[in-house]
């Protein structure tokens, strides 16, 4: 036993330090299926209560959809529980190929490879494709998994100011001597809910002979007229070279991710991407359920249309109620509070009102930009949305922030 008391104290000290900085994440237990209304034990040990969920990535409300659950059961029955293998040894079933083909068709790409998660897809794709002769030019606010993947790759990397096309252009010119340039962006940025201007990014990419990779995890299934993602929304379906995305959000919400794109890039991932090579194949039940999700959303846009309507309703009503939100059109709606303690306190009070939302602050978002991030779902009813807005109004009044914008809130609470 080498875990001495000295070693224990070392790690306990680090946990204390996280608590002192106010960054400690509390445990919250959901005691029901994922849905618009859930049963929650929070704080740990407290009696369970039913609350409305406004902080999940269950954008299309498919996480517990009966047809998706049924398909997962069919996957279990017909293909078993697990593969006990990585894909390239004996872990690839016909249904893995089927899901890959269905995703390629859905996203309008040449080929697709599944990963255990989009975190893994992002961790693996850069190293598999690029080398030290190449450069990655990334938006500064890309997701942490892209940052990690870029750092694991031997290519040089550089960054541009968030969604600043002038700065991106400068960086493309700066790196014109590199063998390959790859622009990397989120499709929808998860904290602000803003859409990367893919039309402008793709135009710059063409002008400067650069590839484009977009992580569309917060867009696949509902952004664009038929839910294909940001490349559909901006009319550049044929201009994006690589899409990474997840099955863990709108597309069923279980787990799994993929790299979809040019066939050589997908093949290189199969041959070289370490999270793919050294991680188990996606479980058959998840694969079958994900195929069902693609079926459902390919047949009808009803769910993404409902999500769009819900988003519009919430954005209009929350603004009319006097809360200050970042303008936008996606179902990620940051209610801006700027001060970390205020964001935490208000989120706690919202829970007391029966609304489950979470406060975000530095380092998850920039310092002085604390907020409560609200996420809409197609599963929300009009009444539930109105209930959420009413709770925000009540809690906002308690803290005296109704009608205040950035300067007013900062003057009252600081940053």
């Amino acid at each position: 036993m080498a875990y001495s008391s000295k070693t224990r104290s070392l790690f306990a000290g680090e946990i204390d330090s996280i608590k002192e900085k106010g960054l400690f994440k509390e445990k919250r237990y959901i005691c029901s299926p994922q849905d618009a209304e859930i049963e929650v034990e929070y704080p740990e040990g407290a009696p369970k209560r039913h609350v409305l969920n406004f902080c999940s990535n269950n954008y299309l409300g498919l996480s517990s959809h009966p047809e998706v659950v049924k398909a997962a059961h069919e996957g279990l029955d017909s293909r078993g529980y697990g593969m006990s293998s990585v894909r390239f040894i004996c872990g690839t079933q016909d249904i893995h190929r089927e899901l890959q083909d269905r995703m390629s068709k859905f996203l309008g790409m040449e080929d697709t490879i599944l990963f255990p998660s989009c975190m893994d897809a992002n961790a693996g794709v850069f190293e598999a494709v690029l080398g030290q002769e190449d450069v990655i030019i990334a938006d500064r606010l890309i997701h942490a998994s892209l940052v990690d993947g870029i750092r694991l790759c031997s290519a040089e990397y550089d960054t541009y100011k968030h969604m600043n096309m002038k700065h991106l252009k400068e960086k493309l010119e700066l790196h014109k001597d590199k063998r390959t340039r790859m622009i990397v962006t989120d499709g929808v940025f998860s904290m602000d809910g803003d859409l990367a201007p893919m039309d402008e990014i793709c135009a710059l990419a063409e002008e400067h002979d650069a590839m484009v990779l977009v992580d569309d995890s917060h867009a696949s299934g509902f952004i664009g007229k038929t839910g294909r993602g940001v490349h559909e929304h901006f009319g550049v379906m044929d201009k994006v070279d690589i899409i990474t995305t997840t099955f863990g959000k709108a597309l069923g919400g279980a787990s799994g991710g993929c790299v979809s794109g040019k066939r050589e890039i997908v093949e290189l991932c199969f041959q070289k991407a370490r999270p793919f090579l050294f991680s188990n194949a996606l479980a058959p039940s998840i694969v079958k359920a994900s195929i069902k999700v693609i079926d459902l959303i390919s047949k009808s846009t009803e769910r993404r249309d409902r999500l769009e309507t819900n988003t519009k309703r919430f954005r209009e009503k929350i603004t009319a109620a006097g809360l200050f939100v970042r303008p936008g059109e996606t179902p990620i709606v940051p209610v801006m509070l700027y001060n970390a303690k205020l964001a935490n306190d208000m989120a706690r009070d919202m829970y007391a009102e029966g609304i489950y939302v979470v406060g975000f602050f530095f380092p998850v978002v920039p310092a002085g930009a604390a907020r409560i991030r609200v996420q809409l779902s197609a599963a929300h009813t009009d009444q539930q949305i109105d209930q959420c807005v009413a709770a925000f109004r009540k809690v906002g009044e308690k803290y005296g922030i109704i009608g205040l914008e950035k300067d007013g809130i900062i003057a009252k609470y600081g940053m």
Partner: protein
Amino acid sequence: MAEMKDVVLEYVVNEYVDEDDGTTVSYDTPLISSGIVDSFSMVSLKVFLEKKYQIKLPDDEATPEAFDTVNSIVRLVQKHQGK
């Protein structure tokens, strides 16, 4: 000395501060610990310094602490210029 400080300061302002956000940066303004520069985008500054001053900054020295102010950045560059 003053010239390098100003070159670095100008780069930091142009590279990391949005025109409309009103942030002012001086030689001693914390850059990393205040969130003006995050550890991911810090690489742009490192590449700039290496190219501009024809030096190689080892990863174990190009730390968030060493890059936290214009003054500390200048000290790091000068140390490597002397090598």
